[in-house]
């Protein structure tokens, strides 16, 4: 069921919330998508205070890096296993005002650092379409809960493609709007200049409604935008006549999965049939190949600093020792998983005085060139599109990827472009490959979410994949 359908029938909100809670519990054994269940009784009791809200009575799951006052927030890390925030993230306040009811904190890759959702301290999240497959990450729990029909909406965060990739793997809509559109205050960070807050939904229209609730200037976040929030739903017409769409040739060329390409071509043909002007556009290949290394550096350099606060002194899972320095060391050694510690090491390496110019600063320079390349394309086109991933969700035990291949460097990671630029970007389901969902990614111009959602709606109209059930 979608948000819009629920809003038409708010009389049965309580029933639906309880049903969502029940489904959440039932899903846990298979999906392992939830870190903390939230008892909604108190929120239900206050439901009538939010009559007419855009999310009135809608059950919502939050990625576990969204701070919730009084409710454990762990970012799926051992170091925060016992952390109970004393404040709400700005978006939590906004959603509550709009009548949303939070029922679960969803699993994620530890501290949002990963693309598989296999590094959570609570174990891997499984894909509702095939329990042997990954849900993708880092917002895998949120993606899985929406895909399984537990909730119609779940919050995610996206630093590289952490909403848009799992959305593709799980067959749901995954949307991150422009950097600054949604406040980051209260979201446990990964990389401040790349982190975006966004949403998983079961339809493009639901993504539009969600954005209207989540968006807006927040004085607690100095990077948040003061541009007015629009009535996004009004703009979502699926009208693409005369719209200019660029197909990213580099990505297509790097994909060998026939089914994925087939689905993609069907969508493209559909868009053309609706009157869109579609061109194949090539970006500078050298820049695209440098995208992942540049990202890796920027993200990890910022992350190692961002998480220096996790020392066990004021909050978190302190491991006792003889000296305060040993407390910090033991707390951080036992609190962070191996992957996290490795990334901090690399990040710190890139920040060292003797390396910073040629690594971190070079990555930031390349970021500028890449952003210029993307904006060059978007000067002539309303959106650019590409398959969100080179295929369906990999198996959980799949270790076959070649990290130096074009497929990996370009096809698997091109959505980082949306984080480098900060431009709004959305993944919409486009079909199946080998029984697993695959999505198409669309990216538009900064703060032009209305146009992006409008075109995404056309894709949904073409595929008919709105509110589709697992196994459809």
């Amino acid at each position, binding site marked *: 069921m979608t948000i819009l359908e629920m809003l038409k029938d708010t009389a049965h909100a309580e029933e639906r919330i309880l049903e969502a809670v029940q489904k959440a519990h039932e899903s846990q054994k298979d999906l392992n998508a939830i870190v903390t269940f939230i008892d909604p009784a108190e929120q239900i009791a206050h439901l009538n205070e939010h009559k007419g809200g855009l999310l009135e009575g809608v059950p919502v799951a939050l990625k576990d890096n969204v701070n919730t006052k009084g409710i454990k927030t762990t970012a799926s890390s051992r170091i925060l296993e016992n952390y109970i925030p*004393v404040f709400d993230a700005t978006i939590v306040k906004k959603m509550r005002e709009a009548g949303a009811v939070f029922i679960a904190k969803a699993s994620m890759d530890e501290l949002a650092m990963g693309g598989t959702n296999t590094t959570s301290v609570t174990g891997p999240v499984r894909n509702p379409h095939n329990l042997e497959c990954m849900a993708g990450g880092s917002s895998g729990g949120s993606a899985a809960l929406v895909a399984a029909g537990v909730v119609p909406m779940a919050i995610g965060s996206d630093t590289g493609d952490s909403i848009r990739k799992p959305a593709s793997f799980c067959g749901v809509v995954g949307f991150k709007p422009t950097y600054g559109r949604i406040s980051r205050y209260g979201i446990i960070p990964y990389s401040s200049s790349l982190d975006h807050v966004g949403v998983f939904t079961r339809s493009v229209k639901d993504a539009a409604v969600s954005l209207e609730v989540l968006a807006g200037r927040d004085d607690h976040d100095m990077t948040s935008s003061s541009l007015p929030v629009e009535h996004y739903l009004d703009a979502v017409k699926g009208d693409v006549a005369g719209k200019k769409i660029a197909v990213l040739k580099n990505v297509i060329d790097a994909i060998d999965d026939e089914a994925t390409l087939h689905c993609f071509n069907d969508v493209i043909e559909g868009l053309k049939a609706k009157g869109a002007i579609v061109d194949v556009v090539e970006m500078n290949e050298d820049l695209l190949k440098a995208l992942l290394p540049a990202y890796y550096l920027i993200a990890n350099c910022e992350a190692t600093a961002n998480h220096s606060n996790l020392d066990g002194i004021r909050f978190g899972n302190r491991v006792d020792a003889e000296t305060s320095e040993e407390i910090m060391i033991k707390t951080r050694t036992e609190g962070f998983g191996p992957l996290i510690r490795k990334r901090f090491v690399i990040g710190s390496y890139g920040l060292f005085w003797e390396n910073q110019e040629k*690594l971190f600063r070079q990555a930031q320079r390349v970021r500028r060139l890449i952003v210029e390349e993307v904006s060059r394309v978007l000067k002539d086109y309303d959106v650019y599109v590409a398959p969100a991933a080179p295929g369906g969700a990999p198996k959980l035990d799949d270790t076959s990827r070649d990290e130096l291949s074009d497929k990996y460097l370009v096809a698997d990671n091109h959505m980082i472009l949306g984080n480098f630029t900060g431009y709004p970007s959305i993944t919409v389901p486009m079909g199946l490959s080998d029984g697993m969902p695959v999505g198409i990614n669309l990216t538009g111009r900064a703060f032009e979410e209305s146009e992006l959602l409008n075109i995404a709606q056309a894709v949904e109209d073409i595929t008919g994949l709105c509110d589709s059930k697992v196994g459809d």
Partner: protein
Amino acid sequence: MEEIKDQAYFKALARKLMFELTDEEADDIVQEFKTLCVQLQLLEAIDTTGVEPMVYPFETPTVYLREDEENHTISQEEALSNASKVVQGHFSVPRVVK
């Protein structure tokens, strides 16, 4: 002279970040570092002469400054609520060597 990026190097680096690596983890990093170095060559290959580092996705300066008015204070109880050791309203750790 370039330092050798071996197990000991990364273990010492980790220590500066206030955590330890096991031998195995340090070995993993040594291996991954090799892959990373190849990836970094892709980065280094880009000519960035005259290009300014891009720190923020949007570079139009902002104008907002917060008014100097008290807007949010939490209670001592809340402040200490997540601490594992509290003494007389303070966070407590073993004596810090100055």
